[in-house]
């Protein structure tokens, strides 16, 4: 049997890979895990597949690249069927709170800007078209999430460009449209916007309570081994600290949009002094 590979990286980047598969080259293992994630497999399935590679490499003493070839190709060749729900309905359920929060944020910011200027909130056709375009873009991102994820991993600059062009297309109608459809006191925009965000947060929290957690840690097939989060820290009660909770929070856009709203409100306040 071969000895574990010694890594001198010093970082926590490969913590999951090194813990579950010490005899497998960490970069190969990382590519393997990433491809399986992109294929929509659960943490349990990924942990089992990686553990079998580990078992083979430990017994044979072969490097994973020699025994299994390219990590991505090998991951695809397994043809594993995802255990997790990747249906469009499930994705929409996941993205629902984000969409509602986004609508609330938009209303709140429009109302807040009008209030700072001492004006009424005027909603134009262009603004509504712009909002619709953004919501359609979110729906498209959900529908083609696999392609988006691949792009984010392999061509991040291209994805950034596509998103920027999309954002520009979303903004254009708002700038061009001038016909006022509704004119209400600015306070209504602020109130309804804030209430919408609060409702969406409640929705998201209810979903978390129902499903337990959205995080899907990579787990060893052996019950005695503690599961590992994607970030690399063992998820036992002893290490479930405030930092890991913050990390988990930051991974969810439902938590980020309210924070982003506060930042935008502060910027708007500063710009409309």
């Amino acid at each position, binding site marked *: 049997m071969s000895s574990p590979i010694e890594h001198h990286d010093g970082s926590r980047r490969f913590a999951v890979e090194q813990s579950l598969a010490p005899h497998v080259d960490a970069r190969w293992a990382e590519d393997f895990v990433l491809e399986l994630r992109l294929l929509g497999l659960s943490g349990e399935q990924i942990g089992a597949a990686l553990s*079998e590679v580990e078992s083979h490499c430990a017994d044979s003493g072969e490097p994973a690249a020699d025994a299994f070839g390219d990590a991505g190709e090998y991951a695809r060749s397994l043809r594993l069927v995802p255990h997790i729900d990747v249906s469009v309905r499930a994705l929409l359920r996941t993205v629902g709170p984000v969409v509602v929060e986004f609508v609330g944020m938009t209303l709140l910011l429009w109302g807040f800007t009008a209030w700072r200027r001492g004006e009424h909130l005027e909603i134009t056709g262009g603004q509504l078209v712009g909002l619709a375009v953004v919501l359609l873009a979110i729906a498209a991102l959900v529908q083609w999430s696999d392609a988006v994820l691949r792009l984010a991993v392999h061509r991040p600059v291209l994805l950034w460009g596509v998103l920027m062009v999309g954002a520009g297309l979303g903004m254009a109608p708002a700038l061009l449209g001038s016909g006022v459809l509704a004119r209400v006191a600015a306070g209504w925009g602020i109130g309804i916007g804030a209430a919408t965000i609060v409702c969406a947060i409640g929705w998201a929290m209810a979903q978390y309570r129902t499903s337990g957690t959205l995080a899907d840690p990579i787990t060893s*097939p052996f019950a005695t081994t503690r599961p590992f989060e994607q970030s690399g820290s063992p998820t036992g009660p002893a290490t479930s600290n405030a930092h890991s909770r913050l990390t988990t929070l930051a991974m969810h856009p439902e938590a980020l949009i309210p924070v982003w709203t506060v930042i935008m409100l502060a910027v708007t306040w500063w710009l409309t002094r």
Partner: protein
Amino acid sequence: MVISDQPWPSDWLRGVLELCVLRALVDDATYGYAIAARLADSGLGTVKGGTLYPLLIRLQNADLITAQWRAGDGGPGRKYYELTAEGRRELSRMTAQWSRFTELTTAILAGSAAPTHAIPSPEVNP
């Protein structure tokens, strides 16, 4: 290239590997590397992990084998594969079929095979 360092053409091995893997599980449940080692020791050549494990998953999906993780005793944990009753029946059926096939091809190559069906011969232009 997933099957290497062996005297047999990879096309032949691809055809018979499933049968050989099932045969390697007849006596007892065992794990992937041990299956590869048994096949190599019997002269089949090196079967790479990249070939073996996808095949084991296919056999599992076809209910011909089952798998169970066992913790290692001082070593790595291993996934043990075991033949199902259906797997044994399939192995028996395929082994008989393979024997007939090899007998036939051997006879063809020796030039002694008798045609069993009236196969129309291609027209030969003078």
